[in-house]
């Protein structure tokens, strides 16, 4: 395993913010640490990137212990943190060349590498402007490029798209997707199920400093149940009739007597079949809503299940 995390514990004062977090990332794969605000994602990433010392447990990057051999670890990783680590009063190009020279590419090598990366993250036109004139999305892309000056064995991305507009987010996803195709091992943190789904091979769900669930996005989704259709009816008898008519599709009574819910694949075809069936049976429908389980639902479901198992 390229990244090996074993029972990490971290306390801030009397508060335990990581309580035995373990996971592993095989080389060439993408792992998403998914969790709400305050779950301990940043703390985990900071420990792995040698910025913070754990109070218990251990972590190794390519076999190097993050506490005992920090310099060896630093030579293998790059970190793009939650807040862009770029100099406002340097241009994008100067920022990149500075990193190249710190990594001993030499003046010429650093210049060449900076030019390549500026093109790659689509900042060619803004290369010689001060970063203080960049938008949030441009800053993140520069920050990502700074992590790639020397291609890292492991790339840490802490909430790479939080606070970005949808266009910048999808640009960022494309950039990360390209890296992954080139074989970079990535550990990213996110609050968005969709982002984990889109980018990650495996997801570690973390909540309150503990791993609440772990698996491929498909595995996790099947544990959560997929999309649902919520049907509303003008009266109770219509609702009960609908539940009977759609029993084969897994329909059940909703939260009140006027509604019914049933699992769906989210497709229009399924919706049409359901409505056709109700129409043929002469059951009037007043409203149809499709809903996906939100991240909150995920946490309720998974942390709830976790508590029951341990009690």
């Amino acid at each position: 395993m390229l990244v090996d995390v074993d029972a990490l514990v971290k306390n801030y004062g009397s508060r335990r913010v990581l309580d035995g977090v373990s996971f592993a990332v095989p080389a060439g794969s993408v792992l998403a640490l998914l969790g709400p605000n305050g779950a301990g994602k940043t703390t985990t990433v900071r420990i792995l990137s040698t910025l913070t010392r754990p109070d218990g447990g251990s972590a190794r990057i390519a076999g190097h212990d993050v506490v005992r051999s920090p310099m060896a670890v630093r030579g293998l990783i790059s970190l793009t943190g939650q807040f862009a680590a770029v100099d406002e009063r340097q241009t994008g190009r100067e920022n990149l060349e500075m990193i190249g020279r710190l990594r001993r590419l030499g003046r010429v090598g650093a210049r060449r590498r900076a030019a390549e990366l500026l093109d790659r993250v689509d900042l060619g036109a803004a290369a010689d402007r001060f970063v203080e004139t960049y938008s949030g999305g441009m800053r993140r892309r520069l920050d990502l490029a700074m992590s790639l000056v020397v291609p890292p064995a492991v790339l840490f991305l802490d909430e790479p798209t939080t606070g970005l507009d949808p266009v910048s987010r999808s640009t960022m996803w494309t950039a990360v997707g390209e890296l992954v195709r080139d074989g970079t091992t990535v550990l990213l943190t996110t609050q968005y199920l969709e982002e984990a789904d889109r980018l990650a091979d495996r997801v570690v769900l973390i909540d309150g400093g503990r791993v609440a669930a772990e698996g491929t996005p498909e595995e996790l989704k099947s544990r959560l149940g997929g999309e649902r259709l919520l049907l509303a009816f003008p009266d109770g008898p219509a609702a009960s009739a609908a539940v009977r008519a759609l029993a084969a599709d897994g329909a059940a009574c909703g939260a009140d007597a006027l509604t019914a819910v049933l699992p769906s694949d989210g497709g229009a075809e399924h919706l049409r079949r359901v409505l056709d069936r109700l129409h043929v049976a002469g059951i009037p429908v007043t409203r149809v809503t499709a809903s996906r389980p939100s991240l909150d639902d995920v946490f309720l479901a998974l942390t709830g299940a976790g508590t029951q198992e341990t009690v």
Partner: protein
Amino acid sequence: MTAPALPRHRSAALAESLVLVGRSVRLSRRDVETLVMAIALPLLMMALFVYVFGGAIETGGAYLTYVVPGIVLLCVGFGAAATAPAVADDMGRGMVDRLRSMPVAAAALVTGHVVASVARNALATGVVVAAAIAMGFRPDAEPLEWAAALGLLLLYVLALSALAAGLGALASSVQSASALTFFMLFLPYLSSAFVPTGTMPAVLRAVAEHQPITPVIETVRGLLTGAPIGSAGWAAVLWCVGLLVVSSGFAAWAYRRRTRR
């Protein structure tokens, strides 16, 4: 599985420091307000002391000749103090974390700030001395005396900059970093910079004669204008070397404390 770690050469820390010196110099050059203040303030003080107060101050010779070394020390104290907010600013941003997650020597960032401070101060001192010469200041120093005066000033600036860097690393904000260096701007007034210490009340005089700035000023004054130096020379060198050792240690400690894992 253990991938081979890149071997770090002994020269690595030096090379990394040089890159970050370049960064700090670039950032200083672009911080126009700070740079202008660092030059304009000593110029204004010099004009004020020479043309406004100077007439009333008896120093046994031309007041301009007396006051220029003091103005230079005031100037470099002001310039060195600017290291504190610069370091504090870096500490509050992501760059310090990026550098700490890279294979870069821990001392490189602060070294960059301190050396950039020396460069800023060399510029400001040059401007102040040139203005003084334009106003009629006529140093009679030999090349060797110039070199000795500049060497002493260099030690002094290094020591104060390292002290300011340490304060900047500890400060919780850029503003409080500036406030913490207040005494650096204040100490020159409590020395022989602007008036001979003999004119002060006993208590102040004791302070003024035993604080580091007085011997440094007396020595620079003696080297540049031929005034007697006496024991001030050794005292100045000892003060500066001692301060440099202590403040470098303090800066290293403060940086480690701030970035404690």
